């Protein structure tokens, strides 16, 4: 525990937090009556309207990696971080809504792995279910670790106590109200996060003289590091060469690696988000879920990235050696860490939290920290509800105990909720090697998720794809990812967890560049191997694939809907606005 916490809370701040806890638990309590079947518990009885599932769709993803990690990346890379949204998330969300949701929702699969069972075979499902379950536990643990460390540093709270308290609250409301409770609280948490961060951005921008003031100050930081003056404030104009932007990638790696492979892999196949759409009350609502989610999502960069950018230049010493509000990372002996080039290593994860502490007086500070807590909790609950469903349906029901009563599986869902949280707490104590949570999560996604999108794309749009093809493709994709990671290193890193453990064939300018290329190679390997093995194995008869493959499924019709509610109208609007944002911040 640090000798002196960064700040102290007063009565009003604690009151705000306490009220939030009471309401979150109250929602779970009010929903406890309607959890009668496993379908209620795991799928909300497929009864929620699109605006609720839409908000939950992004809110479940709005955990630590988003609020803290995107602020960290904003401080480290500047506005180019918005590529995670405007190149990455939005096109993928439009694609899943328009083209993939008909299969997820229409097949009546209860989970993404179960879709793989219907489309391919048991082994493909199990591979996906096991890796997904491990990943949810891991992400949840990373999120908890970040929260415990943060609240310890800021407020002097005990690491163990803050982890336990938030875990118990999430556990309580998920146990009581299942997925509905998680989703309702995600909607609540979404509004709390938005209302906690808007005044932060407003005050921060005012303090640095608006966007122009911010650009002028960041230009000084940029030139002092040997980049063009606008490297931190324009998203595209320095992407021609990986050496001229702080991200250390060039446009091809960015668009293919992040935009195509990683983002489509995450938003189109990750059950954590797809589960929210599956809880919708109709096919149209399920298809509109990611499209509705895309509208606030495209504005999130202003909420979560700008605070990190402002943190770099808010206080006076943002010059050559400047680090703004962002403190140095400390070694075990308390001295600041220094990298190979002799520059102090910054703890970018603290950029956004330091902004809260610096700009908010008591009162608003309580609201801001409650918003942070809310983001941690919605991320944790999202992972836990996805974990308990995949565990119960795809692992327990299909391998451990078939044909039990529904009450038995409902009970197993509750047990898995407890088990998932206990495992996540264990993971929290393991997750501390990387200096940027985002890079770490992207790396894990690259190994597990990058090949996945190739499998789904082929499975949904090429009926000749076979189960053996999908399974071998996934395995080879993941192995290719591991090989590539093991044979390459980001500049300045030591061989080990950051790569190079099998030898060194290539050095990338940055960790993100390495991650993007790992994803591209994994995806390509999976795509090619799946096609080759599929052609060599026996295809399934067409009538078994109805409702699971594009060419054998009737198109969902939007007739009878007013034009404003049609999914493709919303999709075009979202894409045009996203293109406009890319252009404005070019």
């Amino acid at each position, binding site marked *: 525990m640090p000798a002196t916490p960064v700040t102290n809370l007063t009565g*009003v701040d604690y009151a705000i937090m306490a009220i939030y806890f009471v309401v979150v638990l109250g929602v779970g309590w009010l929903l406890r009556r309607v959890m009668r079947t496993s379908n209620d518990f795991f799928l909300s009885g497929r009864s929620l309207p699109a605006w*609720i599932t839409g908000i939950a769709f992004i809110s479940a993803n709005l955990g630590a990696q988003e609020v803290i990690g995107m602020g960290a990346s904003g401080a480290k890379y500047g506005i180019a971080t918005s590529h995670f949204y405007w190149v990455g998330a939005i096109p993928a969300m439009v694609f899943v809504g328009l083209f993939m949701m008909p299969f997820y929702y229409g097949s009546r699969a209860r989970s993404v792995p179960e879709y793989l069972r219907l489309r391919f075979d048991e082994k493909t499902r199990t591979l996906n279910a096991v890796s997904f379950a491990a990943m949810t536990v891991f992400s949840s643990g990373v999120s908890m670790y970040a929260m415990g460390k943060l609240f310890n540093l800021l407020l002097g709270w005990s690491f163990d106590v803050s982890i336990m308290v938030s875990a118990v609250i999430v556990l309580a409301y998920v146990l009581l109200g299942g997925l509905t409770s998680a989703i309702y609280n995600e909607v*609540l948490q979404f509004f*709390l996060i938005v*209302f906690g961060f808007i005044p932060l951005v407003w*005050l921060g921008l005012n303090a640095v003289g608006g966007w122009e003031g911010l650009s002028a100050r960041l230009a000084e930081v940029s030139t002092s590091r040997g980049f063009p003056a606008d490297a931190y404030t324009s998203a595209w104009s320095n992407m021609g060469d990986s050496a001229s932007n702080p991200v250390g990638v060039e446009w091809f790696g960015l668009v293919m690696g992040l935009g195509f492979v990683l983002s489509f892999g995450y938003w189109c196949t990750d059950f954590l988000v797809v589960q929210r759409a599956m809880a919708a009350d109709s096919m149209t609502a399920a298809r509109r879920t990611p499209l509705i989610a895309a509208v606030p999502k495209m504005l999130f960069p202003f909420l979560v990235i700008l605070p990190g950018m402002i943190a770099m230049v808010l206080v006076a010493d943002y010059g050559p050696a400047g680090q703004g509000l962002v403190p140095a990372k400390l070694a075990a002996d308390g001295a600041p860490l220094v990298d190979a080039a002799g520059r102090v290593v910054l703890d970018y994860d603290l950029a956004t939290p330091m902004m809260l502490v610096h700009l*908010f007086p008591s*009162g608003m500070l309580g609201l801001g920290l409650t918003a942070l807590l809310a983001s941690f909790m919605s991320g944790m609950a999202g992972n836990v509800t996805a974990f308990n469903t995949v565990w119960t349906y795809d692992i327990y029901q299909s391998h451990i105990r078939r044909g039990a009563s529904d009450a038995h599986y409902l009970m197993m869902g509750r047990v898995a909720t407890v088990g998932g949280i206990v495992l996540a707490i264990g993971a929290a104590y393991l997750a501390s090697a990387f200096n940027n949570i985002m890079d770490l999560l992207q790396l894990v996604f690259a190994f597990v998720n990058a090949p996945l999108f190739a499998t789904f794309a082929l499975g949904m749009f090429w009926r000749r794809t076979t189960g053996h093809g999908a399974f071998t493709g996934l395995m080879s994709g993941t192995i290719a990812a591991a090989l590539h990671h093991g044979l390459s290193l980001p500049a300045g890193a030591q061989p080990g967890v950051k790569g190079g453990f099998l030898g060194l064939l290539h050095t990338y300018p940055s960790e993100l560049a390495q991650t993007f290329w790992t994803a591209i190679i994994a995806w390509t390997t999976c795509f090619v191997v799946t096609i080759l093995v599929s052609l060599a194995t026996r295809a399934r008869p067409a009538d078994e694939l109805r409702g699971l493959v594009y060419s054998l499924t009737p198109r969902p019709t939007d007739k009878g809907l007013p034009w404003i509610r049609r999914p493709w109208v919303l999709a075009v609007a979202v894409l045009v606005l996203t293109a406009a944002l890319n252009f404005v911040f070019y």
Partner: protein
Amino acid sequence: MSSSSGLDIRVPIGGLFTVLGLLLAGYGLATAGDPTHYARSLSVNINLWWGLIMLAFGLLLLLAASLGRRKLSRGGS
């Protein structure tokens, strides 16, 4: 807009924002005479102003929920 769960999510969210808005705005009024309190937030009484905005948002949600309920019961009878 309330689903088969019987709980309209606008009610707890509206309630939360109403209470938090009142609390923040009240605290902002109570601390309005103390300029050092708002040195951090560029001398803006952010508690008062943001509290009022949150209060308005909370009341709006509660109003929408109550209109929805009335419409529902009229449709049902």
